[in-house]
């Protein structure tokens, strides 16, 4: 019995010892595995955190660059490049607001210095712009699907942060909504109406509609940029930026917009008699965009006087033929703006619209091709452009205006027809 007990006790001890050793072995193996796994876990968390920090730096960089692009906020690292580029874009010196959202200028700046510093949490981090398809700011068309699936016209920039041999990149999309004017909800009319009993009573309203008009005409650089996207364009002018009417439509589509129309243009041009009343009983429309009194407008006064007395300030308001030699033309002259802030309403280049009322009469005649005494210098004086050619013979005028004093030089050279776009957004 006792030997049995002894054997039993011995056996139990052996089992207990075996169990303990086994447990220890299992635990050690498990602990080893668990430690490995924990290290992996920690590495994973660390990796997530470093990626998170990179993301924060890149987002901060995107924010700083957006403020520069959209608001014109200063970035010290771009100062030198800006000075160099202003020599190339010298018109912008006098009109710094136009630098905002102007991709050709910013592209030039980035070519000079594609790196800028970002401050975050007390640290300084250099971010670089990376070229895509030979551009720092790569244009994106509304009419083309991007692999990113983003909607609308704008420019993409690729920001890069380097951390040792690692690189983090962020695509920044700069959707261009600058230099547009919202057309206030109110009654508008087309063509002049200075008398109560007028034969021109065409009126309309945009109540409940959200329409945005381009503040400026389309620039040559923008057209050259568009040509990279739209290969189906008909070119019949000598200069690359001379577009046919069809291509003007296509250009506006590229920006997700429509070609400016006559009712919208007149709405933005005629000075409302009472700005506070959006639904006036009588909608008078006076020939000049700056005053309802003709006697206060220099064009009217000059017509009444004899001789050439046009001043530089007059030319900034309406750049007519007589201004050549006095002042170089700029499409950005502030004085030529209408009540809505778009211009040039009178003077400057001939400008093309779509006319849904009288389709042939699609051209604003008031331009620097005509002297200040010409009848064309008033709102609503329109001519007809063929839409395909660029010679004076492609233009005809309303018989009501009588024969026009077309300068002879026009028959010798090709004419540039300016245009602009508008867009409507959901109610």
């Amino acid at each position, binding site marked *: 019995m006792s030997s049995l007990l002894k054997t039993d006790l011995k056996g*139990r001890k052996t089992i207990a010892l075996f169990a303990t050793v086994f447990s220890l072995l299992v*635990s050690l193996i498990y602990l080893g595995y*668990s430690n490995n796994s924990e290290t992996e876990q920690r590495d994973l968390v660390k990796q*997530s*955190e470093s990626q998170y920090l990179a993301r924060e730096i890149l987002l901060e960089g995107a924010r700083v660059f957006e403020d520069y692009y959209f608001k014109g906020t200063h970035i010290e690292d771009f100062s030198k490049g800006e000075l160099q580029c202003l020599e190339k874009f010298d018109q912008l010196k006098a009109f710094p607001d136009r630098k905002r959202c102007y991709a050709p200028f910013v592209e030039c700046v980035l070519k000079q210095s594609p790196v800028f510093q970002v401050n975050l949490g007390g640290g300084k981090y250099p971010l670089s712009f990376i070229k895509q398809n030979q551009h720092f700011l790569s244009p994106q068309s509304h009419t083309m*699907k991007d692999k990113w*699936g983003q909607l609308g016209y704008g420019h993409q920039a690729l920001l890069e942060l380097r951390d040792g041999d690692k690189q983090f990149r962020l695509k920044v999309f700069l959707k261009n909504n600058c230099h547009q004017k919202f057309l206030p909800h109110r009654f508008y009319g087309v063509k002049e109406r200075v008398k109560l009993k007028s034969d021109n009573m065409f009126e*309309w309203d945009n109540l409940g509609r959200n329409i945005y008009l381009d503040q400026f005409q389309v620039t040559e650089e923008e057209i050259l940029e568009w040509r990279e996207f739209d290969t189906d364009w008909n070119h019949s002018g000598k200069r690359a930026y001379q577009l046919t009417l069809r291509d003007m439509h296509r250009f506006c*589509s590229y920006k997700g917009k429509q070609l400016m129309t006559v009712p919208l243009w007149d709405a933005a041009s005629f000075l409302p008699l009472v700005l506070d009343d959006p639904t006036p009983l009588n909608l008078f429309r006076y020939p000049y965009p700056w005053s309802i009194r003709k006697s206060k407008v220099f064009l009217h006064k000059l017509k009444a006087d004899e001789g050439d007395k046009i001043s530089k300030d007059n030319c900034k308001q309406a750049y007519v033929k007589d201004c050549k030699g006095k002042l170089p033309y700029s499409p950005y002259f502030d004085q030529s703006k209408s009540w809505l802030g778009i211009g040039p309403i009178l003077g400057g280049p001939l400008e093309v619209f779509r006319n849904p009322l009288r389709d042939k009469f699609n051209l604003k005649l008031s331009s620097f091709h005509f002297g200040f005494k010409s009848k064309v210098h008033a709102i609503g004086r329109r001519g007809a452009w063929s839409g395909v050619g660029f010679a004076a013979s492609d233009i005809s005028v309303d018989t009501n205006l009588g024969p026009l004093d077309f300068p002879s030089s026009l028959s010798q050279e090709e004419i540039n027809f300016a245009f602009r776009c508008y867009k409507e957004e959901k109610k």
Partner: protein
Amino acid sequence: MRIFLIISLLILVSCKSQKEEQFAAQIKNNLIELFLPAIELEVLEQGRFNTGESLESFPSLNFPMVRAKILNENFDHFSGFCLFYLMPNNKKKKPGVISFVENYPGEDCFESQREREPFWEISKVEKFEVSFARDKQLRIKNSGSLGPYEIFLKIDFQGRGSRKEFIAERFSLQNLKRKRSRSILTFPHKTFDLKAFPYTLVGDYGDKYENKSQQFCYQVDKNCQVIKEFDCDSCRYGWTYVPGGECGEDFNAVCGVDRCGERGEFACPRGQAYLRGFVRDIEPCSQDSPLGYCQEGLVPICDENKNLVCL
């Protein structure tokens, strides 16, 4: 011998505890990976959530609680997820479940739930807490202003063997700002078009009503029910409103280059003066309809759907 047995037991228990810790660490890590790259966070159950109190009411309902838009690790692709919470039912002794379902842009969380299975679940949840708050520890130095926002998540759950566990994680969201509607934190700049979605551009340059090639991008039926939601941003060549219809100011809209007023095309919208009572006693479908206008020599006439066409 007893000592041997106790040591063995302790070792086994410690192994188990290690396992629990690892389980919790795995959940933490998954949460980090999901929430840190968020570029937009929307709390969908605002009233209950922002108090920071645990959610225990409404048992057995699977609520979408948070919707997040995230940037992938290469920062070049968006995706999103919805966090659902199936609340515990204490009477039936059913624990709660937190599930994560992939969410596509333009889709609400319920649609996502119908369309696909969760890609991750945390089961045996007893309490769940989520809130947005200012990160008090990260007060901006010198200026003394409040720090950035953070999202706080606390999950009480039953670990293995019914052991009570909890995870409490704060994620500082330095670049996200609160929108006016206080439930959304978002990156407030234009860098990302957060409305972006994979889309198909509609329409061709030559599309015309006359050829019946134009496509409506917003349409209401005779009963003024929307039969096509507004999707005009995807029109390749722009879009225009079509005057007419039978639903007052709720005009249809078509894709394409603006050709309004031309022969055989839609009339141009003349406005709402008529609809708002400035012009009276004229039928919308009469020859001189006040709703639309056409080129000289053409008149607006209603087609079979009461849209005005120039003929």
